[in-house]
């Protein structure tokens, strides 16, 4: 069995535990990504012919496209060897048990969970089959409640089977075509797992849809695809839960997220990413927003060795709105190159981007953003604010925004500031009895508050805790 099949099994909920041993014995490494591999993935998932065709076309495009290595200041991707990719993403047989058994998780990850204390459910889910069951129940309850309203929420592989027509129309056709970039093409070829959310017209899902538990049951979706369709006048908040369950020994993550915000609909997509420090995180996320629709991205990027991620929104209809709130934290050896892209393609569209970054211990953060205002997008406005906080002199913080303005009746503003943590602020807090560590943590907590206040409380707490943990090393 090829390595790809192994990866496939990994993401297949039903068979994961059952066939584990057989996979192990049948395991055989094979380098490179081939047409045969794709066919095996598709066949095993019992996919319709059109999906196989799309995968194969994406594979062709993947081979044709260049690496994104000619951007000024782009992270070093030289370790991402195209021919080695599949073996890299293939879980090592010794550590892949980590997702099944809490005790097999790398110590660093276990430690983090212990310190986090929350969320307990996730820890339980990771610690064995029983918890897995438990998470299924949570998932099922949610689904029943929404099903009455016609809301669909399931994993992407299932969606291909059960909601084929919708998937066929939207899947990597309009928002993120494989031709978008090399890693979107890679994703198109070997995607697996992920979430499918469909909200019918005039429907408000009044509590966040969380992919949190389901991601566990799906296992290690390193190429997961998320497709969210919010029909007219609908509203939904999707949270890709703490990404800690995606902690792994894998070296590459290349997910795809497509969001369709129809007229007057409202979608919020929130995520807190905390990949292991050896992961190359190269995602493509894009929303298409129709008239009077609102798209909101809230994201925290904590982990990974290198991240290149620029969630983008196409404001296609008049009156459409986009809000981005992002935070990046780069510690030792990390290069977090992230930002936001917004295309104002219709009149009276609005966007705001608020980006915060923290770098310490030699980490690098970069805000790389693009605001494009097309000819005819009159009375549009955009505001971009970037703030960077640096802890020490080994760290780097860059800001590289681009503004392309083809319309005169617009209001465009960009602002960025960089500063070190204020000695006076620390002194002030110390003089009131806080020790140095606590003072700095409090300043950081205040710095990222605009992000945390957009998240449900448990995620906000978790984000704060993650940052505290990141800071512990140098502050202790």
């Amino acid at each position: 069995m090829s390595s790809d099949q192994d990866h496939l099994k990994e993401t297949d909920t039903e068979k994961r535990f059952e066939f584990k041993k057989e996979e192990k014995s049948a395991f055989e490494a094979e380098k490179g990504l081939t047409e045969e591999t794709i066919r095996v993935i598709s066949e095993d998932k019992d996919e319709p012919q059109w999906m196989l065709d799309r995968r194969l076309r994406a594979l062709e495009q993947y081979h044709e496209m260049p690496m994104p290595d000619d951007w000024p200041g782009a992270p070093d991707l030289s370790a991402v060897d195209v021919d080695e990719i599949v073996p890299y993403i293939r879980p090592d047989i010794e550590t892949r048990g980590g997702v099944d058994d809490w005790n097999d998780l790398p110590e660093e990850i276990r430690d983090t969970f212990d310190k986090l204390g929350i969320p307990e459910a996730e820890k339980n889910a990771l610690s064995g089959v029983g918890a897995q069951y438990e998470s299924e129940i949570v998932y099922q309850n949610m689904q029943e409640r929404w099903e009455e309203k016609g809301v669909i929420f399931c994993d992407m592989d299932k969606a291909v089977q059960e909601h084929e027509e919708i998937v066929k129309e939207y899947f990597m056709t309009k928002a993120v075509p494989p031709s978008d970039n090399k890693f979107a093409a890679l994703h198109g070829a070997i995607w697996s797992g992920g979430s499918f959310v469909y909200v019918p017209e005039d429907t408000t899902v009044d509590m966040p849809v969380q992919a949190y538990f389901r991601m566990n049951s799906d296992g290690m979706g390193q190429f997961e695809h998320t497709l969210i369709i919010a029909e007219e006048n609908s509203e939904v908040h999707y949270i890709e839960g703490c990404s800690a369950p995606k902690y792994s020994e894998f070296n590459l993550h290349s997910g795809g997220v497509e969001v369709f915000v129809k007229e007057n609909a409202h979608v919020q997509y929130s995520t807190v990413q905390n990949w292991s420090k050896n992961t190359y995180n190269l995602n493509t996320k894009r929303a298409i927003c129709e008239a009077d629709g609102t798209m909101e991205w809230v994201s925290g990027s904590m982990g990974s060795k290198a991240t290149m991620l620029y969630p983008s929104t196409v404001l296609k209809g008049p009156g459409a709105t986009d809000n981005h709130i992002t935070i990046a934290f780069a510690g030792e050896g990390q290069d977090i190159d992230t930002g936001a892209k917004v295309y104002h393609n219709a009149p009276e569209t609005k966007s705001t981007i608020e980006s915060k970054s923290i770098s310490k211990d030699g980490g690098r953060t970069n805000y790389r953003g693009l605001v494009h205002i097309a000819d005819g997008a009159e009375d549009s406005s955009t505001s971009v604010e970037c703030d960077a906080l640096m802890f020490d002199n080994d760290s780097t913080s860059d800001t590289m925004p681009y503004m392309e303005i083809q319309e005169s009746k617009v209001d465009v503003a960009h602002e960025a500031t960089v500063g070190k943590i204020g000695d006076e602020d620390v002194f002030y807090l110390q003089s009131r009895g806080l020790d140095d560590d606590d003072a700095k943590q409090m300043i950081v907590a205040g710095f990222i508050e605009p992000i945390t206040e957009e998240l449900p409380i448990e995620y906000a707490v978790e984000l704060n805790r993650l940052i505290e943990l990141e800071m512990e090393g140098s502050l202790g």
Partner: protein
Amino acid sequence: MSTQVHATLTAEQVEQISADLDEPEWLLETRLEAFEALDSLAMPDVIRTPGRRWTNLDALDYETLVDPLEYAQDKDRIDAEGVDVLSWTEALDEHGDLIEEHFGSVVDPQRDYLTALSTALFSAGTVVYVPEGVDAEDVKIRTTMNSRSLFNYTLVVAEDSSSVTILERQQTGDSDVDGERYYSGVVEAVTGENAYVQYGTLQNLSEESYNYQVKRGHANTYSTVNWIEGNIGSRLTKTSVETRLLGDSSESQIVGAFFGHNDQHFDIGSRVWHEAEHTVADLVTRGVLDDEARSVYEGVQDVGTEAWDTSSYQRENTLMLSDESEADASPKLIINNHDTEASHSATVGQVDEEDMFYMTSRGVNPEAAKNMLVEGFFVPVLDEVEVDELREDLDDLIVQRLTQ
């Protein structure tokens, strides 16, 4: 496919120019090396947004534009007391060693194709030498280009504790030349300790001119290098104004103003490197675009690891008067030392409707009101221009354009 000039340019032509200027052997060699390098050099970096290059320097027909041996200009040089403002021939004669020491030390003669071309072919230009301790005000250079192409090279050497303000005007004169022209200007400024150089340029070339300029200064300890970059004329301008803050407590200010109309294209770069302690930089640019004009602006504040206690600020504002105009802005911060206070901001917008309403409601006709607001838009930049004459000239050109 464009043709590039090195296909027809010969070493003999380069030697001829050098002989005309009565140059020493080392300078001829520098020229010939630049000429030899043309084959392997790339066009200057232009501002790119992901997936797009905004200024296509390859598309110009250099072979037709550049006429190496036909150069004609009028040059006025007004010097100030104690300072030498010299043509290249005079300067090489009087300060040969000084020029040999500094020529090409700030702007690499082979940094890119167009700079190397300028090094190989320059015939016009000026050397400004400010001896130690001399305060020189209002050095004026006026270059009037009367040929198809003109390559201008300016070297400024300001010794310890000296100061100088230089105002350079660039224009095209009445001549028999029809159609497109090419102007290339290189300015390099060297400073001693505690020296002060302010270099202002007012570019008002004909709108059939292609204009390539690179200006770069090295600021020594306690030194200041300030640039004023006014761009009004030309069909296409690609300009890069740069300061390296190499000495502790050095400073630089780059003030830019541009006003594009018709189908003018401005590719404007401002760049500062903080490489020492306690350095300060301030980048301010304001531009107005009308008709189908477009601007691409990139400002970079690069703070090195050794640049403790840095202050670095950048502002760029563009006003769009026409719906066919396009503006791109990319203010970049690259920070490698955390002991830094840095910020940048950029805005793009149109004439404020409330301001218009306010003025028209007080009896000012809409056209006049708009003109006043546009003129007012430049005020924060004009305020930064210390040389009265440059400020007034720039303001005059803005008013002229508004009332055309």
